[in-house]
């Protein structure tokens, strides 16, 4: 079951390319952050179902996000972003005059150092929004983690998702720098790589992943990827109609650097605001051409050597 990074284009079927001629539709997540209420039920449900260890009591000061990010021990992570920006026709009712960041250099909930990235610089009085977004493994169409895995621990499922098998993983860690999103991670004291399986055990039995099941507001939607993409497109149109001009999809484009994500998002700001890379590229994308270049270079060397020998032979004559 290998997935070749060389195959690109929007028609790419990762399950078929991995040797499932007759497979169920590709399944994925559509996380609509515009209806996320930040309850973190997804985080808890994920940990409960997948028996992931608790990973520390740290008050981070990053708003209500005390999780920090995805890791070997966190497969769903809810980000909280406090922003001086309006959200459609919503009235936040808050009145802070002046530059609150300068005033409290001790820090607003968004650390001042990040303010350039998280636009909390003073806006109009009353402009404020609190964004919440549940992040997860993207289950890329072209998954570099899988490409580089030497043991076959990482594999492509019949649902087109990417799963790591803890009984095969040898902890080499090649997958970790390969992930363009920084999702997959080695567990401390264990050494093996862990990440979201899109609840392969549940969906294989006809269920839905634990996080989607627990989500009270349908911010996390699970289903066939093409249906989710169509629903997401309509939702963005609706939000634009309601004046939420910032609404955009992230990871829904099959022509992006990873061939589109199996888990994609509706965001209300630039991806960087949520800690997501703006233009992710499958890190193994250039491997084939690199090898071609290597081969070409090697061929050239061989040719030059041959030419040299020939020349020498001629010379001897």
């Amino acid at each position: 079951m290998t997935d070749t990074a060389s195959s690109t284009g929007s028609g790419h079927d990762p399950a078929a390319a991995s040797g499932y001629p007759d497979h169920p539709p590709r399944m994925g997540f559509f996380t609509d952050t515009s209806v996320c209420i930040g309850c973190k039920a997804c985080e808890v449900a994920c940990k409960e179902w997948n028996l992931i260890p608790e990973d520390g009591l740290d008050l981070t000061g990053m708003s209500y996000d005390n999780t920090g990010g995805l890791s070997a021990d966190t497969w769903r992570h809810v980000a909280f972003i406090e922003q001086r920006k309006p959200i459609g026709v919503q009235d936040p009712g808050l009145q802070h005059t002046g530059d609150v960041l300068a005033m409290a250099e001790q820090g607003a909930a968004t650390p001042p150092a990040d303010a350039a990235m998280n636009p909390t610089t003073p806006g109009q009085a009353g402009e404020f929004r609190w964004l919440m977004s549940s992040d997860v493994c993207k289950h890329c169409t072209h998954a570099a983690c899988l490409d580089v895995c030497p043991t076959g621990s990482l594999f492509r499922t019949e649902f087109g998702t990417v799963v790591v098998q803890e009984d095969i993983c040898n902890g080499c860690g090649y997958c970790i720098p390969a992930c363009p999103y920084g999702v997959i991670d080695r567990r401390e004291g264990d050494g093996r790589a862990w990440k979201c399986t899109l609840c392969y055990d549940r969906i294989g039995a006809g269920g839905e992943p634990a996080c989607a099941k627990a989500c009270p507001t349908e911010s996390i939607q699970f289903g066939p990827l093409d249906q989710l993409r169509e629903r997401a497109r309509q939702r963005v149109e609706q939000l634009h109609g309601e004046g939420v001009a910032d609404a955009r999809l992230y990871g829904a484009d099959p022509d992006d650097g990873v061939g589109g994500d199996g888990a994609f998002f509706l965001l209300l700001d630039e991806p960087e605001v949520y800690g997501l890379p703006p233009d992710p590229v499958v890190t193994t994308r250039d491997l084939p051409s690199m090898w071609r270049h290597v081969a070409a270079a090697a061929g050239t060397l061989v040719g030059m050597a041959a030419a040299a020998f020939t020349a020498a032979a001629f010379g001897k004559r």
Partner: protein
Amino acid sequence: MAECHPVGFQWVMEAKARGATVIHVDPRFTRTSALADLHVPLRAGTDIAFLGGIVNYVLANEKYFHDYVVHYTNAASIVTEDYAGPADMDGFFSGFDAEKRHYDFHTWQYEGAEVQAASGERDLEYPDRAGGDPPSGSGVRQAGRGEAHGSGGASSGQARTDPTLRHQRTVFQILKRHFADYTPEMVEQVCGVPPEKFLRVCEYLTENSGRERTSAFVYSVGWTQHTVGVQYIRTASILQTLLGNIGRPGGGILALRGHASIQGSTDIPTLFNLLPGYIPMPHAHANQDRAAFLAAEGTDKGYWANMGAYLTSLLKAWWGPAATPENDFCFDYLPRLTGSHSTYETVMAQTRRECVGYFLYGENPAVGSANAKLQRLGMAALDWLVVRDFSLIESATWWKDGPEIESGELSTREIATEVFFLPAAAHTEKDGSFTNTQRMLQWHHAAVEPEGDARSDLWFTYYLGKRIREKLTGSTDDRDRPLLDLTWDYPVHGPLDEPDADAVLAEINGADAQGNPLSSYEQLTDDGSTTCGCWIYCGVRAGGANQAARREPGDRQNWVANQWGWAWPANRRILYNRASADPDGRPWSARKALVWWDSDEQRWTGHDVADFAATKPPDYQPPSDAHGPAALAGTEPFVMQDDGKAWLFAPAGLVDGPLPAHYEPQDSPFENRLYPQQRNPVRQVLPFKGKHNRMQPSGAQPGTEVFPYVATTYRLTEHHTAGGMSRWQPYLAELQPEMFCEISPELAAQRGLTHLGWATIVTARAAIEARVLVTERMSPIAVQGRTLHQVGLPYHWGHNGYSTGDAANELAALSLDPNVHIQEVKAFACDIRPGRRPDAAGTAELVREYQRRAGITDETGTEI
């Protein structure tokens, strides 16, 4: 709601997706605000002024639902000549007795009505002899009985009315005059809400109310936890009634509670002053027998006139064959109230050694109750304490590691309390029902057996009862008869001999003389031939089947979905739904149709079960000698009230006024702008001589400036109440790992507080420390010409468990709402300073220093 009830909030999100406008009024910008269309921050403790302002807007701009108001409310009723309101009485209602600190409500009655005082007030005749000399009047009066009154109220007889609403003493005109002072400018002065924002709320609300549209109010217990808490809800009721939003789909006032079955625990009450189904608990002196009790407590009209059937069936359910007509159905077996025995008065009684034994079932007062120190001191004075919980909560270990042990105020060797900790089973380990805010019972089945010594509350209570009865076997003492005669014979099953919860439900449902399950409370009789453990639950096991266990999917039934679970009474999903139709029985509008009169079939029909006599036509006029439900006309939808009307003005039933009036919280940095009277004059203050429940100066009093900020306490999504169910859970603890306070950047700058640093929050009771979260979600607000900063305090933490911290409830005082005795923890003045607090002894000294600076004595804040 998104913070504390995220699962229920999905329906708000669904309504929003269908075009609903969501308004969130809260001092803080929360997860709810993040999804609302409009967030309105206001000063904590000023909601009556805010809602009263909307009432004024509705009346002044004639935005009320005229036909609904005229026909279905008491707007046209004429009140006695002697009534006077706070605008004319310096902030008091007529009838105030300064010495006893209570109101005589007789001047609040309808004119021409036969004044029949509700029993709570009637018991004023019998001063409380057992409860000592409470400073705020009779202990019997303090028993309040707000819940019982809310469900019935006093008889109003045949009051005079003026359907034109022009008579100066109609409820409608009184209402107009009363709220005339609640102008947008006043709202700005009191609440700190700018007029343009306030008017936007008024417009949203009135545009979405009326014939074609309805609006719903949702509140959580934060609304109740004030010295005027009941009047908060009253103001919302007045508003929703004026707008025609009661008894109609999409309307109502929804109370979201702190636990999964708090509704159930008032229906089958854990409250001292109620019997099941909101039947009042008898008082020691007033009600000599069943007939006298019923004459005092029942009504002439409406369904409370049948209280005799409900009560007698209850007595038969409890005492079975022992309850006979000859012994008045064992009415004398019921305990009698000798005063108020609410939770806070019980704590005071503990400190006086009047209460010497205490059961805590899933409750952690050492963290979760106001003035946590007093809670611990009360427990330290007990002979015995039983704690049933999942973990060793603070209320189970204060005797060895509480703050008073650290400070040396208490010493483990000298505490005589014998403490028993008995592990409790979780809901997943037992059968039973939850009753949610919609009054809907949903059955849950045990998934696994409890581990180790953990047992269900049902198991514990059943076997405790069995053992006590065994000990009393053979007793000839009359006082043991109520225990020995109890029907205590539930079948048991499983490896733990668990009592059968379904058998308990069957007893609650009731049966006829042959033992057949009843299907409706209309079948109950007062001759002893029926049994029923809770009349409003009658029918939950109709046909012998557990109706609460029904799980018919939504797509296989209509939108009311009344085949999912079972709602009391009679599986009605919307109470008083006769009001969804006009006086002629036709829906007010097609899109808001719920029930209506079918003239062909000559009965009420519709999507929901009609909350009305099924065959009583809209044009029915009762004969003059009619009694009970038959005395209600076909146009009187509020069938529990004895005039069949929604009460805009409450002629009886409330101890602090027939109308809501804004008073400042017990500890407030501001003067009352509406009335010269600063605080609710009949609030309950429980002074504790000996410095542990000191109140603060308020308004313009000297020393107020020592506590210039306003604190409010609340819950976070990640934790549950006092933390017993969440702080021990690693998956929840890691999400909110520490006690923190939330403050604005402006306050941080003003007081030198640093993000993620420490702060100490101080009141006249205590000082606690918390990590600092500086956030723009806390907005400074302009009140009475100055800037007010508010301090947000989650109240989940204590010092046991996996995630720990100081308890916010150390800071709060015991100053209570006089109707229901609930504490004021949602608004109190405080100071905040940078850095951690000193050790326990140093903290006590710090508090004393603040008391000295503010000139606080035992008497401070206890004046009227």
